[in-house]
Each structure stands twice: as C-alpha cells, then as structure tokens.
C-alpha cells in the first residue's frame, strides 16, 4: 500500500473515531474545544478525506489494472501480450513505449485541452454501459471517434525515428497528412493492426519475466 493511501486510511480512522465520540456523547459540543473538534470531525476532516480519496481514485483510474478489471476488457489486456511486433499496442506495451502500468490511459486519453476530463467522462460512460446498459461483445467494441493522430504525435512528434522514418519522410505530403490528422497512423497499410481481439486464438503470446518488471499491474 502506498504511503498516501496509508495516510488516508489513518485519517479516515481518526475522523470516524472523532465523529463517533459526538454521536455517542453529542453534549461534548457544548464546550469551545468540543465545538472546534466537532468542526474538524464533521467538516474539515471529511472534506480532506474525500479530496484525498478523489485524487487517489483518479490516479487509480489511469492504471492498466483498473481498465482491465471489467471482464469485457480482458481480451484487450491479452492483446498487449501478443508476441508480434506488428501489433501496435503489444509492441508499445512490451517495449515500454508507454508506461505498462498506465498502458490503456496513455494511448486512449485525449491530449487536448480538458482531454483528461473528457477521457474520464468517457470512462464513466463505459462504466454506465457495463453495469447498467447492455455491453457489446469485446470484438464489437469501437471507439466513439476515429483514433486521432494527435495522441500518437504527443510522444512521437520530433522523435528521430518518426521524423526520419523511411515511409514517413518519403513524401512531404505524407508527413503533412499525418501531422494534420488527414492520414491516420492506424490506416490500412500503415500501423493497422491494433487490438485484434477477434483473432486472439490464433496468436502466440509473450511470457513476461518472472519478476513482472515489465508490467506492474
């Protein structure tokens, strides 16, 4: 358990104990010290607990483990371990081009203004559909919008491997098309193999090292 989580649990324990005193003996609030303690217990500490909890839950919601906690996402998690470098998510995950413990969020967030918020709202929508709606089959899941090159360029723009890539730099129109999102990075003939969950049964899978250093989730 992280130190911040431990601190939060301690704060919650302290707050519950403090409130319990006032629930059992409400007359304690009669004194000035009691009023101050009541203010801390009923107002300041719960607010702090919720604030810290919110921050912690937001961090947790970026984790790969969080995204894969829904049964429907399991095939997508497995697709990160396909032993084939032509599979884009697998090669990013296995080679740490994205942080393995935040693999989903890193590629599926939105690197525009309020993009993080938009991604979180999208996540809430997923949860609504998963728990209260009728979720589709894993292979039928589609993005709400076509994948935007902006998310790829957030990391790759300026990188030598991208800027001087044989295909990328072969024609100035190609590079312009990529950077203006007119030519999708995941279009046919380019990096087209993404989460191919329908054909998982035909794939070989990479076995992680025993220490799990490549995917801490």
């Amino acid at each position, binding site marked *: 358990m992280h130190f911040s989580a431990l601190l939060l649990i301690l704060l919650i324990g302290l707050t519950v104990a403090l409130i*319990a005193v006032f629930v059992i003996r409400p*007359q304690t609030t009669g004194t000035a010290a009691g009023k101050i303690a009541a203010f801390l217990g009923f107002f300041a500490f719960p607010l702090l607990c919720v604030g810290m909890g919110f921050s912690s839950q937001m961090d947790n919601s970026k984790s790969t483990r969080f995204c894969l906690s829904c049964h429907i996402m399991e095939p997508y998690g497995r697709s990160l371990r396909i032993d084939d470098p032509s599979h884009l998510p697998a090669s990013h995950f296995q080679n740490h081009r994205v942080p393995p413990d935040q693999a989903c969020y890193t590629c599926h967030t939105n690197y525009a203004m309020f993009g993080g918020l938009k991604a979180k709202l999208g996540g809430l929508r997923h949860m609504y559909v998963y728990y209260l709606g009728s979720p589709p089959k894993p292979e039928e899941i589609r993005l709400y919008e076509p994948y935007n090159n902006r998310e790829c360029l957030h990391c790759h723009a300026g990188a030598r491997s991208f800027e001087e890539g044989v295909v990328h730099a072969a024609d100035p129109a190609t590079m312009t098309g990529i950077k203006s999102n007119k030519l999708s990075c995941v279009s046919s003939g380019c990096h087209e193999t993404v989460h191919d969950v329908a054909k998982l049964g035909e794939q070989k899978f990479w076995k992680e090292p025993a220490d799990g250093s490549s995917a801490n989730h």
Partner: protein
Amino acid sequence: MAVQRTTEGRLKVVGVILICALLLEALSFLGHGAIAFVVFSLAAAILVCLGIPAYLLTLVRKDQESPH
C-alpha cells in the same frame, strides 16, 4: 431543553451519515477496479456531500433556535 435534544439528534444523524461515508471510502480502497471507483463516487462521495451541508445546516439552525 427540547431544542438542545433536537440539535443533538441532528448531530447524531449527520455523524452516522459521515461515518457510513468514510467507512465506504475506506472500503473502496480495498479494491482497485471499477467497482471500487463506483463505491467511492456514487456512495462515499455523495454521502459526504450530503453530510457536510447537513452539519452546517445543524449549526445554522442551532444559532437560529438558540434563545441567546
């Protein structure tokens, strides 16, 4: 005296709401998946958001009802 009992009763109710909220929040930290997030955001956070204004309302009403 009756006013005092009412205020104390309200404090008890607010206290129970906040204790429930905080226990649910602590419970949400046992999990790492979407259910933990739902427990936190739809139960714990909402109960705290109800409990704190209820406490502040109790203070305001106490002031209004207090004879001095």
